[in-house]
């Protein structure tokens, strides 16, 4: 490590504290835990205030649509009496084209309230466009730091499109080559500019999504007289799942099953220069989903407000070919051109609905905008150029980085369940050599939706 690197990293806590305007040490317990609920409630925003801020910014109240043709299609492959009604929240209708605007609205509002001159976010995804759009509306400056290029200066088309969109809103986009040192660049920019850290993992980044959970609960109930049986959430950093689940529960939908869905990218290393351009999904995949589920505090703030294992009832994976197939299906049968990455939960829902009864309801809780670069055509064309073979057959045989296998027909749209117990065990590994107090066990039980006795037997 260079001295430059070490010197900056040693100042990490001080820089982060100044850039979030929030003293995380106030919430720390002795031992391993912290007061999660106090951290979430202490920031001065009620649900009503969040709704108002979002409405003022053209965020939220997105259309809820019943996917009648896709439901009919899923029923073709269901047992008699099975095949739940599939609904979709068209989050692409938010300012900047994705649900990420809900998160950015609150973060940017907080930055403005605290008197920061600008905001910074580290993201190659839709969140960058969301922060840039909201910052434009608030009159704040904006810098987005992206992981963009491999060592041959080749970038994912999807990431190039997001850079364009951020620049359309007046943001400065800084593009990096592959590597976790992005955090080093991010820290040095925060230190240099004194801008606000619009982290995806701050309480603002998560509470902003609670309105989505509320809308789903309220809208499904007013349409059908009941809360949905299941909501499927595309899962990467865990924030989408955490915020949606918190909103649903707050609205009274306590029995609604929360299902996480990620694209299966097993075998590809997220920090590998070689693997970087051999994946067709830059988010919503297991490369983020699994590590952030089993260790949420790996994020860019001392304590992540995204804590998916507190809320997750099931975790499923789908393959890249399956998500592309459902992206095409959404366009062909419902007239909606969206995604592809945001359609991960749609692909899972198509398969999950077949395990549910016809009078039950499953909600796909997001869509995202599509466009040049960020569309199945350029992404498939790019995959081919990088030596990935496109095939038809059973997507479960897909080898990420080598093949993309499209379902040969709708019966091959399937999901796989990752046992929650194995994720919980991975989470606990970090503490196996700790001498844990009673309070630590209470914290772990809350983190993992287990009893204290169960936590003890897991060790």
């Amino acid at each position: 490590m260079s001295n430059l690197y070490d010197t900056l990293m040693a100042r990490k806590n001080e820089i982060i504290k100044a850039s979030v305007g929030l003293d995380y040490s106030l919430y720390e317990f002795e031992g391993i835990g912290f007061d999660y609920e106090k951290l979430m409630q202490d920031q001065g925003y009620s649900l009503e205030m969040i709704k108002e801020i979002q409405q003022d910014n053209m965020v939220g109240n997105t259309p809820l649509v019943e996917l009648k043709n896709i439901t009919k299609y899923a029923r073709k492959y269901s047992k008699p009496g099975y095949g739940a009604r599939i609904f979709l929240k068209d989050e692409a209708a938010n300012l900047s084209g994705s649900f990420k605007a809900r998160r950015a609205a609150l973060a940017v509002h907080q930055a403005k309230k605290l008197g920061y001159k600008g905001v910074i976010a580290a993201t190659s995804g839709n969140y960058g466009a969301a922060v840039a759009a909201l910052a434009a509306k608030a009159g704040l400056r904006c810098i987005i730091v992206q992981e963009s290029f491999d060592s041959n200066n080749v970038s994912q088309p999807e990431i190039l499109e997001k850079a364009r969109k951020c620049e359309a809103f007046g943001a400065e986009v800084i593009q990096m080559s592959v590597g976790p040192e992005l955090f080093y660049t991010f820290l040095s920019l925060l230190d240099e500019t004194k801008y606000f850290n619009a982290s995806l993992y701050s309480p603002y980044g998560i509470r902003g999504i609670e309105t989505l959970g509320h809308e789903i609960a309220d809208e499904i109930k007013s349409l059908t007289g009941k809360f949905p049986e299941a909501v499927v959430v595309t899962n990467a950093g865990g924030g989408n799942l955490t915020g949606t689940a918190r909103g649903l529960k707050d609205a009274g939908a306590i029995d609604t099953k929360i299902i996480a869905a990620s694209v299966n990218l097993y075998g590809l290393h997220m920090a590998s220069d070689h693997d970087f351009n051999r994946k067709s999904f830059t988010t919503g995949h297991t490369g983020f989903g699994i590590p952030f589920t089993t260790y949420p505090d790996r994020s860019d703030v001392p304590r992540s407000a995204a804590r998916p294992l507190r809320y997750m009832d099931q975790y499923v994976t789908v393959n890249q070919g399956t998500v592309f197939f459902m992206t095409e299906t959404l366009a062909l049968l419902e007239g909606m051109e969206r995604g592809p990455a945001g359609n991960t939960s749609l692909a899972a829902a198509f398969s999950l609905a077949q395990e549910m009864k016809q009078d039950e309801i499953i909600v796909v809780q997001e869509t995202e905008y599509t466009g040049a670069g960020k569309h199945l055509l350029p992404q498939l064309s790019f995959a081919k150029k990088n030596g990935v073979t496109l095939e038809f057959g059973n997507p479960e045989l897909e080898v990420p980085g080598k093949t993309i296998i499209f379902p040969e027909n709708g019966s091959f749209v399937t999901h796989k369940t990752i046992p929650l117990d194995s994720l919980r065990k991975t989470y606990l590994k970090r503490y196996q050599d700790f001498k844990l107090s009673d309070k630590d066990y209470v914290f772990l039980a809350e983190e993992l939706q287990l009893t204290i006795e169960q936590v003890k037997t897991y060790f």
Partner: protein
Amino acid sequence: MMIEQGAYVRIRRTVLQPQDRSSNLPEDTTLVPYKMWVKGYLQEESDLFDIVTIKTITGRTETGRLKESNPAYKHNYGDFVIEELRLKDIILGDFYE
């Protein structure tokens, strides 16, 4: 090729040499430097590939190797992908059969 002062350009800077990179990397990534690309207004008339200073859109100053002037967006809808037509056939055939 001289590029005039005030032109909008793109530069590249090596942030960390391979030996200075994080110790927690897969082997292929440890072999290559960590680089940054950023756009801004060129502060002095320069030649392509010179080390130059720019002012970014947020008013920051950055230094790096001059790679491109008037950088355009070149991403598009990619090449023709025949497999997408087969996807259409499968889905429509499967649904309406």
